[in-house]
């Protein structure tokens, strides 16, 4: 991924900044209606995951295209404690923090593609994509 926009995430106001920039970029890529809200909400969930578990990290946003369809790529990256059991973290209702445990599984449902790479002690990278139309 080259270019795009990087948003540093280290406090709750950054979550709002990331989702506002993401919504703007999604609108420019051609998304509309509830797709914009779903993208902004998914960004909010992964950005909050950084604040809650890793304290700091970044969200990178970039437009992309695949088979002639435009889309938005969101990469949430941190050097935090990592997720020991990804399968468990992706289950509805599982949480080691203060949340309902709906953040990451919810974000997955809002986007078309969702991948997590995480290593305990090294950090977590979540890549999500949504395609127009």
């Amino acid at each position: 991924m080259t270019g795009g926009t990087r948003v540093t995430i280290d406090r709750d106001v950054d979550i709002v900044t990331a989702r506002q920039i993401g919504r703007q970029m999604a609108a420019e890529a051609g998304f509309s209606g509830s797709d914009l809200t779903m993208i902004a909400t998914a960004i909010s969930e992964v950005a909050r995951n950084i604040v809650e578990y890793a304290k700091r990290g970044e969200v990178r946003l970039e437009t992309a295209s695949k088979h002639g369809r435009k889309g938005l790529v969101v990469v949430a990256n941190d050097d935090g404690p990592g997720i020991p059991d990804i399968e468990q973290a992706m289950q509805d209702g599982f949480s080691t923090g203060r949340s309902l445990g709906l953040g990451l599984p919810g974000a997955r449902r809002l986007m078309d593609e969702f991948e997590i790479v995480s290593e305990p002690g090294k950090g977590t990278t979540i890549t999500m994509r949504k395609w127009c139309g």
Partner: protein
Amino acid sequence: MPIPILKQGNVLIASVQAALTDQELLRLKDELADKVGRFRSRGVIIDVTSLDVMDSFATRTLRSLAAATRLRGAETVIVGIQPDVAITLVQLGLTLEGVATALDLEEGLDLLSRPARDPRR
């Protein structure tokens, strides 16, 4: 920026803005639980018309806000959830169960003014 809370009769009305942070929402919960007692309010309306994102944190906090004010003797009604936000909440698996909702401020006030009310229905 603190969320303004207006007092209208025995109802408190809070209108949240688009760029609502987690801390502001948590502060609103504390403030409303306090003000419900101070003003002896019987109802609370949270107007989320300008809120363009309601994620799992916002939903959970609004649920616990409604539960806390209920324990203080006031019913909470969430008004103005935008259509796209409603669709997204369902997709997320969040239903705001147990919290009363109404289309807008007017409907919310109407719901709270019904004599034998059960706004949870």
